[in-house]
């Protein structure tokens, strides 16, 4: 388990308005909780909202290659826990 888990919080306008504004706390919570095992960043639009006009499933977060729809802090932390198992 050397490879870092990557967490990308989409901070594009659609995701931001639909809820990723509230996910910004992950940028502080995750490093505090997992140290250097997880790399977390707020990123520009991941373009996931424009596929089939799926804005209603925003906000999106990518944990490695997995896409979390309608992401919440809880969901993202659970996904990280799963990966660390």
């Amino acid at each position, binding site marked *: 388990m050397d490879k870092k888990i990557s967490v990308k919080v989409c901070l594009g306008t659609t995701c931001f308005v639909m809820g990723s504004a509230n996910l910004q706390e992950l940028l502080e919570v995750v490093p505090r909780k997992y140290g250097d095992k997880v790399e977390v960043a707020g990123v*520009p639009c991941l373009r996931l909202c*424009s596929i089939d006009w799926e*804005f209603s499933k925003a906000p999106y977060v990518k944990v490695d290659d997995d896409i979390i729809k309608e992401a919440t802090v809880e969901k993202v932390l659970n996904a990280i826990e799963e990966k660390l198992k």
Partner: protein
Amino acid sequence: MAITGPKETSHLKREILVRLIKAFYSNDFAENARLIPYQMRPKDYEATYRCCVYKERAILRDRAIAGLGLSIEDTDDSVHMAELAKKVLEREKPDENCLTVLQTACKGCVPSRFYVTDLCQGCVARPCVNTCRFGAISVKDGKSKIDTEKCKNCGMCAQVCPYQAIMKVIVPCENACPVGAIAKDDSGYTKIDFDKCISCGKCISACPFGAVHKKSQIIDVLKHIKNGKKVVAMVAPSMFGQFPCSPEQLRSAILKLGFYDVYEVAQGADVTSKTEAAEFEERMENGEEFMTTSCCAAYNELVEKHLPEIKPYRSTTHTPMYYTAEIVKEEYPDCISVFFSPCVAKRKEAMNDKNVDYVLNYDEVGAWFIALGVRTEECEKSGFKVEATAQARNYAVTGGVADAVKALLPEDIPAYSVTVDGLNKESIRDLKKYAKNGVCELGNLIEVMACPGGCLGGSSTINPYKQASKNLAKYVQDSKSCKNEK
């Protein structure tokens, strides 16, 4: 501090707005508006919040009705949604009362009362029975019981119970309302008493069912833009920091929506600061004890409806919105002016201001960006014609208004500012006391903000307070000070 936690109700409300705006831009607004509940809850959808998909659709229809700017309570269920959408396009003016309640969602709340939980041990001391002055408590089957007919909701029993076994069952909207304007009626439906309501919007944030809606004016604004009118946006200082972009990018993002020009309301805030500082100076020279600010619309409505005794102490200076709209209408006399606001209360203020035609909240503007695919973070920068001062841009944060006034006062006028950081029953009581005694022992310049944290804590903001204040602070830091201007 203002808590704007993540809420699924906000997600739902914003989704409906995006769909309504999309429908407006489509070639058949009425029909596509009608389809919204069906698109959101298609045939094979499994109901997640309510008993069945049919009820969820009915509720979504009601929410869309609020999005159209109509009153949910007054709308006949049998009228076709497409008809309503058509009717809205013919509307000349927005509705006067800016809130509406989705009453079907209110059945979930039990009326506010005190309740003995299972934690009751049926103790020997029985302080609850002995403390109750109304004889409402008796012990049955080894547990205390409250007779709701006799109970006056004084709460003494809950205070004396050694097991903390007696709870107050609250209705969140009633509990949040600082002026007792929202309550369940005998039928169990929540009603807003608009004679008492100060439009602060606390009930919107408080309701876990998202049952309190604002009546949106977005369709009206869209209509004017479509008809080729010159529509000018006036952006309140609290909006900078609400989106993932710089203020200059936000300006061009708003222009992309079809606005003719975009003004910073901080420009008007500079006029407010100057006028208010001069007024404060004069009042203090005349030996007055204190003055309160006058820029918060919910506070102003509170003064009108519940606190007339403080009127002589409230500044007569107009709000930043007022001065900005005056400037805008002077520049573009034939324009439609739209104020972008963090709260509902400004809608009410706008209705009494001939220079402000419409008010949109940040979540509505956000939905508009989504509907048109405007990525604010990718927009090019576009500067404001008139740059406001740092002090004016800081109006959005508690203490910012008082600081701006203080910065413009001559040194021989001592100003001690007091901030009322959020209107609630306690702070209203304090204000009443200052008015009654004619003195405030804490200071002489009282800044009143209805929302904790100031405008950044408004009920219609997007970004949580902590992040928003960080973003705004950066903008303020990069702005020129009004002190150098003097």
